[in-house]
């Protein structure tokens, strides 16, 4: 019961603040609402018994990505930015998106699906999580480290001021 209350509380909080993320004019305000949203989503992960996921969400999103956004907005001088124009607004999406969302929610709420078969799964405990991550999913885990290394090099190369062929 308490978990359910916590879930609904954070769900409302996350939906409202994510609406603010996409509607604010000022990018800095959007970043602040994004921080609010990702922390609320971390609360939802905790209420769904995904504690490790919630902790990673707080560390990576709340501590990393939001700060990265703030730095990028600070680095570029805000007064240099031209005001936002919306001439290429795809008008069909104004009606198509809410309609699609409505039908999907209706589908989730009204169609009764049979419960999935509960096989001999490991359960939600933390040791089970770690054991599965480092045995069944070991290869994707190692590939992920290669991806991170590539991102580290690629981001520096892309963002540096001089081009590669310039003489130092």
């Amino acid at each position, binding site marked *: 019961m308490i978990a359910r209350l916590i879930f609904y509380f954070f769900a409302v909080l996350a939906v409202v603040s994510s609406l603010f993320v996409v509607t604010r004019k000022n990018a800095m305000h959007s970043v602040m609402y994004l921080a609010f949203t990702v922390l609320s989503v971390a609360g939802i992960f905790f209420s769904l018994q995904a504690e490790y996921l919630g902790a990673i969400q707080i560390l990576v999103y709340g501590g990393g990505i939001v700060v990265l956004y703030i730095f990028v907005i600070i680095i570029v001088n805000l007064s240099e930015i031209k005001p936002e124009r919306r001439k290429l607004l795809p008008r069909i999406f104004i009606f198509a998106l809410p309609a699609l969302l409505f039908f999907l929610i209706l589908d989730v709420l009204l169609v009764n699906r049979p419960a999935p078969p509960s096989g001999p799964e490991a359960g939600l405990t933390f040791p089970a999580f770690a054991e599965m*991550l480092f045995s069944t999913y070991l290869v994707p885990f190692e590939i992920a480290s290669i991806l991170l290394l590539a991102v580290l090099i690629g981001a520096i190369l892309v963002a540096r001021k001089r081009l590669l062929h310039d003489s130092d």
Partner: protein
Amino acid sequence: MIPINAVFVFGLLIFFIGLFGVLFRKNLVIMLMSLELLLNGVNILLAGLSHQLRSPRGSIFAIFVILMAVSEAAVGFGLVLSYFRQKKTYDMDEFNELKG
């Protein structure tokens, strides 16, 4: 036990708010933020299904999604910065160098 339908509706809402941001905003930084919202919506669905099926697989997949989101944010910001040095704008409508 949280009903899986509530998790689905909530994840869909976050996903569609993010989709709305990607499609309608022209500010590049806010579009990247909306991408984070999209990935968060997917993560909520994965965590909810993991909770429903009593299996850690959903959480593990969500970890990989978070990792991908971080990589995307880092490279995306590198591209945004190098583009901003040339054009002095975040407006997507100005990205028309390849227009025939």
